[in-house]
């Protein structure tokens, strides 16, 4: 069995979501099982009605960062949501919403994008992770 990637995705800005999507799709391409746990602002970004919206950038990006990100996008870089979709098509990628964050943001599961497979608690996340690596973004 390949080493799994277990990603706790907390941040909801487009740059961090893109970095996460790169890790997830790369691991999926290598055939590694991937388990994503969406918390807080990352979960908010996965709402069906907001997933394609502009989620801004982390504060350290600044104006130069904004320009660089826009240039890469204009050159044809896939959005983070499309990159997650491709990763799921490769197989072995499961995306779960943190149940506490669902309460915090007052979201029902049917308001989430279909990329999200379900809702679970932190214990289920760790059980699924087993001895695999855990990454936090």
């Amino acid at each position: 069995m390949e080493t799994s990637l277990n990603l706790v995705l907390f941040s909801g800005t487009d740059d961090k979501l893109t970095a996460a999507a790169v890790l997830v799709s790369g691991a999926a391409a290598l055939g590694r099982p991937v388990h994503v746990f969406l918390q807080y602002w990352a979960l908010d970004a996965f709402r069906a009605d907001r997933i394609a919206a502009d989620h801004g950038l982390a504060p350290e990006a600044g104006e130069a960062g904004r320009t660089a990100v826009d240039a890469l996008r204009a050159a044809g870089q896939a959005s983070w949501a499309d990159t997650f979709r491709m990763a799921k098509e490769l197989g072995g990628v499961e995306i779960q919403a943190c149940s506490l964050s669902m309460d915090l943001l007052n979201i029902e599961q049917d308001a989430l994008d279909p990329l999200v497979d379900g809702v679970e608690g932190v214990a289920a996340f760790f059980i699924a992770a087993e001895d695999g690596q855990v990454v936090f973004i």
Partner: protein
Amino acid sequence: MAVEITTRVDARGLSCPMPIVKTAQAAKTTPSGTFIEVLATDPGSTKDLTAWTKTTGHTLVEQSLDDGVYRFVIRRK
């Protein structure tokens, strides 16, 4: 050795990780023992595709760089 290409992946102009993501997609539908050609301009694609073939058990049989375009030929396991 000129091999007959079954599947072509054009990842030119695409940034990491699309060369390996699109190659992995192509591998799903390419018959075992046949060849996949990948074209990429991402400088990271050489190391990425080498690592990808090593990990997934496919074989990198050719690689070259011509005018900024990396070309890889992979034998599907």
